[in-house]
């Protein structure tokens, strides 16, 4: 792994183009807050008046709880609030959708889908699930409003899987094309690749928390997506960055405890704990910036048990502000 300069990146998009793309894919290591950030992005876009679809990819996702829904999300998009719908991508539905599109005769499609052997083969073929998931996303992207040429969803935000699983998703067209280079399937794979690599429609956001492993993974992932898959990448996002609330003088006082009366010491100890964390946080952010040659977008740590529609406010604001600042322009070189 050799460090690369910023100039080495060909597919980077400036900032976070939240308001003029069609598809945003949020990925990163497990536990860095992908679903919370995906939700906050969707909220920011919906608040701006964009019709947004928030898609969860795993059956163990937390979106329905975060959105305060009484029932788990299903394959069919469901309205959450004005301009915002959500759903959970169901691999079986994706397969059915795919087979139906492939076989115009309904009874044939049913026969194939009803066969256990067929499902075994589908499970066996590497990358099929991911391919189908991408296919489903592309179908939503293509959907139009009734009686109109305008898209049904202006923006689709995907709460993608943790790195190990989202690489196969994003690389599905490539994987597929290596196995099946010609024919209608290959054409479809090329269409899907065209969607995910189209910098006017798609952007991938790599997320990390300011921690060693999460940052390592974000760096590797960012490079891989850029160099191998040629995907358009937003600035890397660092989630849960503690607020910088102390002046230099205060930092010094808290750090060595001088001038802190004993009555205040237990509270200063807590501040010291926060300072130590902040120091580690800053060093990870610097490392990420140096490795990728671009300043990451930092999102504030939110002191809340779980991030829900109600508590995501600071994140939504930060994302909306960052998106506006980015000017939504594609970097040209």
């Amino acid at each position, binding site marked *: 792994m050799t460090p690369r300069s910023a100039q080495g990146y060909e597919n980077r998009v400036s900032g976070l183009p939240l308001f003029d793309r069609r598809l945003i894919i949020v990925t990163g*290591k*497990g*536990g860095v807050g992908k679903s919370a950030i995906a939700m906050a992005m969707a909220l920011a876009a919906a608040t701006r008046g964009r019709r947004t679809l928030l898609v969860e990819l*795993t059956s*163990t996702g*937390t979106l329905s709880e975060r959105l305060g829904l009484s029932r788990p999300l299903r394959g069919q998009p469901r309205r959450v609030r004005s301009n915002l719908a959500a759903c959970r991508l169901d691999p079986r539905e994706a397969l059915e959708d795919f087979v139906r599109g492939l076989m115009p005769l309904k009874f*044939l499609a049913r*026969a*194939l889908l*009803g*066969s*256990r*052997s*067929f499902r*075994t*083969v589908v*499970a*066996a*073929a*590497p*990358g099929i699930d991911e391919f189908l998931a991408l296919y489903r996303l592309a179908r939503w992207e293509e959907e139009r409003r009734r009686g109109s040429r305008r898209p049904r969803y202006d923006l689709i935000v995907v709460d993608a899987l*943790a790195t*190990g*699983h989202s*690489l*196969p998703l994003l690389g599905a067209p490539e*994987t597929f094309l*290596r*196995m*099946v280079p*010609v*024919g*209608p*399937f290959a054409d479809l794979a090329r269409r899907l690749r065209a969607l995910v690599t189209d910098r006017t429609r798609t952007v991938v956001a790599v997320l990390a928390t300011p*921690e*060693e*492993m*999460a940052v*390592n993974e974000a760096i590797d992932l960012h490079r891989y997506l850029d160099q191998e898959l040629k995907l358009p990448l937003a600035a890397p996002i660092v989630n849960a960055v503690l607020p910088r*609330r*102390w002046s230099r003088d*205060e930092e010094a006082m808290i750090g060595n405890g001088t*001038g*802190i*009366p004993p*009555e*205040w010491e*237990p*509270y200063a*100890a*807590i*501040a*010291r*704990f*926060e300072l*130590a964390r902040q*120091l*580690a946080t800053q060093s990870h952010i610097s490392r990420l910036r140096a490795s990728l040659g671009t300043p990451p977008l930092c999102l504030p740590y939110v*002191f809340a*048990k779980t991030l829900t529609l109600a508590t995501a406010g600071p994140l939504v604001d930060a994302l909306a502000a960052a998106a506006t600042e980015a000017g939504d322009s594609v970097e040209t070189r």
Partner: protein
Amino acid sequence: MNGIFTAPLVRERRIVVCVGAGGVGKTTTAAALGVAAAVAGRRSLLLTIDPANRLASSLGLPELGGVAAPVSLAPLNLRAGGALDAMRLDTRATFDGLIQRLAPSPDAAEAIRANRLYENVASRLAASESYMAVEKLYELATEDPPDLIVLDTPPTKHALDFLDAPQRILDVLNSRALAILQNPARALTRGGSRLPQFVLATILRALEQFTGLTLMRDIADFVRAFDGMIDSLRARAESVQRLLRAPSTVFLLVTAPNTVGVGRTEAFYRTLEEAAVPCAGLIVNRVLPRSLFDRGLLPPEPASMPQLPAGLADKLIRTFKDFQSAAADEYAAIEQLRERLALGERLAEVPAFPGDLASLEDVARFARILMDGDGEDFGPTGARGSSWM
């Protein structure tokens, strides 16, 4: 009193498997358990999945490779016989080795490795990593085993993703899939379709021509190449499952109070129970330190407190309130888990380190906290204590 729960595991068991979701500090926990075992005088081996560079360097290794390398624990007081080796799982090499070992002939092994689907199965399927983790564990445990092997596992959302991995990979390679690929029409009719065979055969042939699916043939070749060794693979996978459920093996569920919800940790634990896997208990990492937040501290009344420079008092109070409520949530979550899973003493807590684990000293400190109350002597590192706890 973490030690009541953890010390016997580290002293008496042969295999400790750390499982849990991603981002909860599983790898660090595994490393600390390895160190603790070495301090207790055992020859231990740490098998990790994808360690942070810093963890490798904190163990004094430039990087962890696929072969066990000794870790120098010189600054620690080891009991006689104590030692630690560490290595990283090399999924692809382990898979190659397994094929080499079980293929009926060198030609058969070569045929598999040359198939272009093999690359996908061996390196890209998420389940393969889990499969190879237990396969490697089995190799290590059956060929000149150390006193204790600590296995760090790939992050999984469901406990069963890890345990079922060998089965899932074998299903991919099983004879049923082979049947459909060799004679799809017959397999499909057997699978419940009422269409006459010749109709299906025609459709599938048309489908293959239409789609240009050489993929089907590739899969067929691949599965056929595996055919001769499926039985030995399955037999071996069964031995692995027995090893995982042996009395000398124990699973530890690692979690964090904030990253993973109580409900999900509970579900994970129960799945282990249902799968008849001996789960010893829970290690909760990254808990906001009780020494700071669990001491009955109340929000200060600035009026009755000594004066501070302008603004500082307010910021201190704000910080206190932010963290205090986060800490209260964490402690409540831990008690909920203890109660719902009837864990009693079988729950160990490790406070959040403000920074990263940068040195052997840090890993040893982690180990000491895990073994806390056990009276184990970790030597100068342990004796020094720290400024923040």
